[in-house]
């Protein structure tokens, strides 16, 4: 709270906040081409204090997105490559006995960073997965009876490779719920790919990118995103959507209250990124697939080939009050 007050003093200027967001969007858009929607969503996810799950094939720029985010927003970055022999200690850290001093010393793991890229999270065993997910949930870790807080802001970007089925442990639904959003990268369009092929090396570009924001600024942005106005009319709409997911015959498991909260938080964050006077139905619709896609369980035998299609169907069937 104390910290919050200082942050407020330093970064309350609306113009300053706006400028940071616009510059971050521009910088990210310059590195990751043709993926404006994903960039905006991941920014919103970050501002809504949520964690992001990117699910797609290798080579589509998942890692690049995460790295760019940390670079542009000035966050400390750690990448954890999940493998089948990864242990919780490899994520959290271990206490090492220092013989010269005759005492244990905690060696922090990669989780003690502001932005974590958990690459191919489904390759690790459930034990290792849950170590990460618990840290995400609690914002702190306990080692040898000592509770250690994780840095602020704390943002996890996990990737999952849907193509590999052998020897993987896909995250169960209950764990998926820990991620605020799940997005897909998808192939770039022709023009973007051409520019990618002919243009400069993205890695070098990333190195040259200057950090524009501080972690303090990011906290202020997160606060502003929470303060976005939500009208009764919008809550009506969100409730109508949630009710539909619970009552529709196409859907076996609808959105939970936590899912509904996530929808509100993400809509507010997106409205903030888009500089809207309040959260609009357009914001709700824009975040809906990434919020609900991994939370809804379609009923057996429905015609929907992907969660995105199912979510779009929900949006098309619910009238905006």
């Amino acid at each position, binding site marked *: 709270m104390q910290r919050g007050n200082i942050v407020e003093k330093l970064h309350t200027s609306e113009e300053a906040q706006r400028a940071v967001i616009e510059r971050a969007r521009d910088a990210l858009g310059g590195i990751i081409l043709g993926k404006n929607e994903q960039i905006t969503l991941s920014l919103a996810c970050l501002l809504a204090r949520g964690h992001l799950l990117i699910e797609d094939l290798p080579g589509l720029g998942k890692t690049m997105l995460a790295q760019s985010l940390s670079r542009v927003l000035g966050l400390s970055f750690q990448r954890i490559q999940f493998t089948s022999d990864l242990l919780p200690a490899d994520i959290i850290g271990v206490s090492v006995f220092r013989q010269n001093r005759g005492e244990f010393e905690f060696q922090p793991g990669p989780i003690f960073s502001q932005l974590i890229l958990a690459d191919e999270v489904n390759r690790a065993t459930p034990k290792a997965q849950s170590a990460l997910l618990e840290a995400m949930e609690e914002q702190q870790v306990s080692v040898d009876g000592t509770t250690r807080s994780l840095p602020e802001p704390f943002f996890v970007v996990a990737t999952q490779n849907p193509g590999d089925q052998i020897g993987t442990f896909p995250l169960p639904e209950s764990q998926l719920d820990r991620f605020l959003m799940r997005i897909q990268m998808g192939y770039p369009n022709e023009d973007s790919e051409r520019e990618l092929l002919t243009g400069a090396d993205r890695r070098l570009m990333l190195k040259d990118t200057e950090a524009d924001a501080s972690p303090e600024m990011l906290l202020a942005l997160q606060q502003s995103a929470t303060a976005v*106005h939500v009208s009764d*009319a919008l809550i009506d709409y969100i409730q109508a959507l949630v009710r539909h997911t619970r009552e529709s015959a196409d859907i076996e498991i609808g959105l939970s209250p936590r899912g509904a909260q996530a929808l509100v938080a993400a809509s507010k964050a997106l409205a903030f990124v888009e500089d*809207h*006077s309040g959260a*609009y139905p*357009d914001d709700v619709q824009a975040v809906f697939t990434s919020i609900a896609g991994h939370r809804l369980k379609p009923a057996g035998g429905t015609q929907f080939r992907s969660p995105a299609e199912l979510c779009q169907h929900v949006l098309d069937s*619910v*009238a*905006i*009050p």
Partner: protein
Amino acid sequence: MIQARGTDGSLLSSLPWTMTALAVSIVPHLPYLPIWISIALFGCTIWRYVIEKRRRSLPSVWLRGLLALACFLGVLVTYSTVSGVGPGSALLAIMAALKLLETRKRRDQFVLLFISIFLVMSALLREQYLWSFPYLVVSIIVIMAAWLRMSAAHDETARQTFSTGGRLLLYAAPLAVAMWIFFPRIAIPFWTVPIDTGTATTGISDSMSPGDVSKLSQSDAVAFRVKFEDTIPAARDRYWRGLVLTVFNGRTWSMNDPFAGSRVHETVTEKGDPIKYQVTLEPTHQPYVFALDMPWSWTLERTFMGPQQQLVSARPIDQRVAYDAVSYTGFSTNADLGNYARSWYQRLPDASNPRTQRVAKEMRSAAGSDNAYIEAVLRKFNTEEYFYTLEPPPLGNNSVDRFLFDTRRGFCEHYASAFAVMMRAADIPARIVLGYQGGEVNSMAGHLIVRQSDAHAWNEVWIEGRGWYRIDPTAAVAPDRIDLGASDAAFQGVGAAWGLSAPSQFLHQLSMTLDALDAKWNDWVLGYGPDKQNDFMQRLGMHDPDWQKMMLTMIGLIVGLIGLISVLLALRYRPPAKDRAAILFRRFIKKTGLEPGTGETAKRFARRAMQTGTLPAESVESITAAYHDARYGPTDEFAIARLKRAVGTMG
């Protein structure tokens, strides 16, 4: 109670509504309530409001209990009973006022509104005028509004509340009408309204002292209305026979000793054409029934003709009744008056009115025959200085003496009384008939209005060979009274002296219209009893109507109507407009002529609308922007104004 708990002021907004509803429902009772109850009502209301306003605490249980007991005793003392309409409504009103003093929560307010509804209904037990119905509707709407107000949102305007209340009543109206028409009326009511014992009887009473009728003649109240089948007879033939007074005690005429006349069988011979008509008689709380002199047949149940051709009902006329009657204005009565009856009709108290008796005897012997004597007496009234006035001086005990020789001013009752005494003093059998004379024709409705001011007294004398026949001494003094009717005569006589003129044509027209409406209302609404219902059912095509058929029809109609109303409501249902911005945007959608898709956001709709190319892009953009700000942003009156302007300029 050690520490006084103040009110929290939470009822401050709804309490005035509850009080208004209570006030509206009490107003019809006010003229009948004792003054201390009205004062207590007013006081309690103010007291309660001040308590709420100043956050004071409500009076303690002891004080309230004491007040309740005191008020109960007060009513008991005032009315000397607690049953009946008068004390009942007084009790209801005062307890409602006391209930205000313990109104703490919304639940108490509901109780108060229930009492208000009871008060409105109990006012109908007392009187049902033409304006009672509109007033009833208004008070029910006010009570409904107060009811709705308790659960209303803070920003709801009074107009919205009233329109909601009115709409709810409108939905209920068809059901009420169906129940009113079809609920079986039966001749003997399930329960009888306890008639207020305190209510004075109205109209003519069964005795006549000087001043009785002239008091009546100040009253404009309708006594009865008559609808003639053919033409309305001339004013001089419109004698409405009521009761016959036979006993005189020196001051008061009364109808003592019903056996006196019953020993004599009076036969009436009708002459001329029968006159058929229908009378709607206002309640008098007395048994007398009025009909055109001389009644021949009538349809009122349990009503009999007395020995002197007066109509008497077996039970008092406590409700408005309508009956058909046939009369002959030409008739003669032949009675073989026996010695006993003859002496009965000649009897005078010995010591009373000595001057009159002496003069009568002198005049009789001077006249030579009974007929000549009657002529002479009428001539005396006509030619000597007698004045017809509504405000005669007081007369004292030997009233006829005082009137004939001293004051010489009087009203019909004085002349009738004096005439009868003079006849009896000369041994001519005479009696007084009380009833009404004349009446005002309402050309608008085609009926005759007979008012209390038309009350009249005249004489019947018995002449050997001719029987009883009517003599109206008032006609000898003031022929206008008989030819023009009471009110006109009054204006030309007394009224003119005071500089008054007859009511203007417009006012007259207005009062006639109201009277016509009132008559129709009485006839069709208040008079909708078993007979009318039976007629109506047959006209609707129900064969041989009985209560089972009516009940079944009623239940069927109610179920049907509820179904119909539900379907209509379901068809009419639109998702409620959340706010003004939504309404304005809907207007914009209408103007575009496009149909928004399900789940299509305003932004996407606007884009689609712009693609049609027919709409100015900038105004669509400004509308969309303003709409979003107004509807989804923080409260912003400017955004709504912008939206309104933008939608307005679209044309």
